């Protein structure tokens, strides 16, 4: 390939790359804004109770963990006081990183949540498990939208 041809090919490649980026940006620019007055979007993103933090983590816990790890089921580890117990069932020390790894990868009887929960989701979930665990059916969380108290 002559140097001229190479220069043309390089220029074309750059142009194509620029065009692809521009198209992607244009698409992104045209993406609709998120209207969180739509309850369904809050539900979809687990942010009915809070935008982030342990309150949001509690919501994720209810939908992803509670249906097995609750106060009524037999034969499934309880998660209240997990950080005080010090060890996971595997013998590992209880740390945020170890708990997140367990949630991400699951186990023989547990789903792996690495494709379902983002890093931000896991941060909030683990902060709830660490600080406020666990769910109490007698005191469901307050609805921040409710104003007629």
């Amino acid at each position, binding site marked *: 390939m002559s140097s001229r041809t190479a220069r043309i090919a390089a220029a074309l490649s750059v142009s194509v790359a620029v065009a692809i980026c521009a198209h992607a940006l244009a698409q992104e620019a*045209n*993406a609709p804004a998120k209207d969180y007055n739509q309850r369904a979007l809050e539900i979809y993103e687990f942010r009915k109770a809070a935008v982030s933090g342990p309150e949001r983590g509690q919501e994720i816990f209810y939908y992803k963990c509670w249906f097995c790890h*609750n106060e*009524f089921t037999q034969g499934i580890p309880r998660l209240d006081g997990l950080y005080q117990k010090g060890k996971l069932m595997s013998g590992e020390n209880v740390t945020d990183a170890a708990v997140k790894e367990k949630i991400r990868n699951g186990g023989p*009887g547990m789903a792996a949540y690495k494709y379902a929960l983002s890093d931000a989701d896991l941060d909030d979930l683990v902060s709830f498990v660490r600080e406020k665990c666990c769910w109490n*059916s007698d005191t469901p969380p307050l609805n921040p939208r*409710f*104003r007629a*108290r």
Partner: protein
Amino acid sequence: MATRFAYARVISLGVVLASFLLFFQAAYAQAPAHLRGGPHGVVKSASGEPLEGIMVQLIAQKNAIRTTVYSNADGRYEFPKLESGTYTLRIARPREFHPFAKEKLEINGSPELPEITLTRVTNGALLPPLPQIAAQMTGSEWLLSLSGTGEEKRLLTINCNWCHSYQQIFRNHYDEHSWTQIVNRMTKGAGSPLINMNPRGRFNDDEIAKLVKWLATVRGPDAKDPPFVALPRPQGRQTRVVITEYELPRLELATHDVWGDSKGNIWYSPHRSSYIGRLDPRTGAVKEYRVPQVDPGVLPGTHWIWVDKNDIVWGSENWQHSIWRFDPNKEEFTRIRWNVPEPLNSPMGGNYAIDPEGFIWRARQKAVAKIGALTGDTILRYPLKKFVGTYGSAVSKDGRYFGGGAWPRDGVVVADTKTGEVWEPDCSANCGPARGEFDLQGNYWSGGRGGMLIKFDIAKKRLFEYPLPTPYASMYSAQADKNGEVWAGEMHSGRYFRFNPTTEQFTEYVLPEPYGIDRETWIDNSTDPVTVWYVDHDGWIVRIQPLD
């Protein structure tokens, strides 16, 4: 002479008919005064065309009450008169359009609101697979958009349609092992608490494997969200409705039933929590009452709720296996233990009915039974020949007939307590009639989980099935009003319908949120047109006021 007379008769008849039609049209076009005369305006596209079927919503800052009206063929909409105050004006579920919202709008009287111009997200027929679009999609739209065979989708819609939205499934990605864990837990756990496990699930292992395989394909680790097929927007009569939504004080109640009292309040039940509540629709205020502590190791929760003619509130505790009676004046609960064979935390079939004399009716253990509400003692039994019992229970207004969807098979049980006759007709495979109600003629109507409205015709003594108009929609309950029309939420289609038995026609109202998970409707027959109430599973009370 005879011919002239015949012509005269035809002309007279024509005049009468035309007058009737004109009158009918005028009545049809005119909304009742209490449902009009408020803020109004117009919705247009960016190119200036009027847009029909757009859900225009005002959210009151004071009490978070949401009122939604629908633009007509001219793009015009009109709210009822609203309390003066600050509101957010927005479009609910804009889907193919960019969101529109105007915060802090001061409303006083009946102003013309700022023109709403909506810009399309795409000019194509399919909507882009973005989370903010996906969240607006109904379960029906998800299923129309995902690839898969009819068998695969049917496996999902007849087994996963009871407890939660399809969005709750499809927003996730898991590998096959994880889907197996989840589907097993969901289908082998008893009732919605999933505490007691049954090794023999709702369907067999081969079918579970097929469903898991499909989920792991369309919602696997690498699966992309699909471009979305959107259902048509409401048109014509479907736009003639006002929908009001009320927030509740708590989240994650798994709200189940509503029922109205004589003072205009709406009572609701929480399926997996201790707090029942009473909504005052005039203010949006809710007073909560804590049901007394359940036994240790038992999940709290009230399933069925019902208000008697003396405004005493009744509820069933499906996990604790008891009935409670609540006197709102004294704020006192009385709990009556219910003698059932099921283990605690498994559903006892707590969808009951109370007859005009105050007895509770249900069908379990191969008999329809009349039970003392304050004792739990069986007073009368009508043996069943074919079915074990029913999922729901209804008693006709005159107390003569009992009805319910057969459980766990596909059929209906109707008993005539006057003659002792019992009918147990089958319905089509997986029709799944659950709860329902009698109309004033004594016909029993039931919500078929398989996606059809089911009628037991008391005169013909046979079943009729009416498939829902929207694909993949499901039902759970149905109620008949004073005019004989039948009302119910279409679970998973984000719609609520009315059905006219005379014309056999459905009218669907599109809801501001994409669910429609209605477990029990209460109809206020004191208004004209009737006012319809239900509570969506995710926790807000919905009032539906048709304009005709």
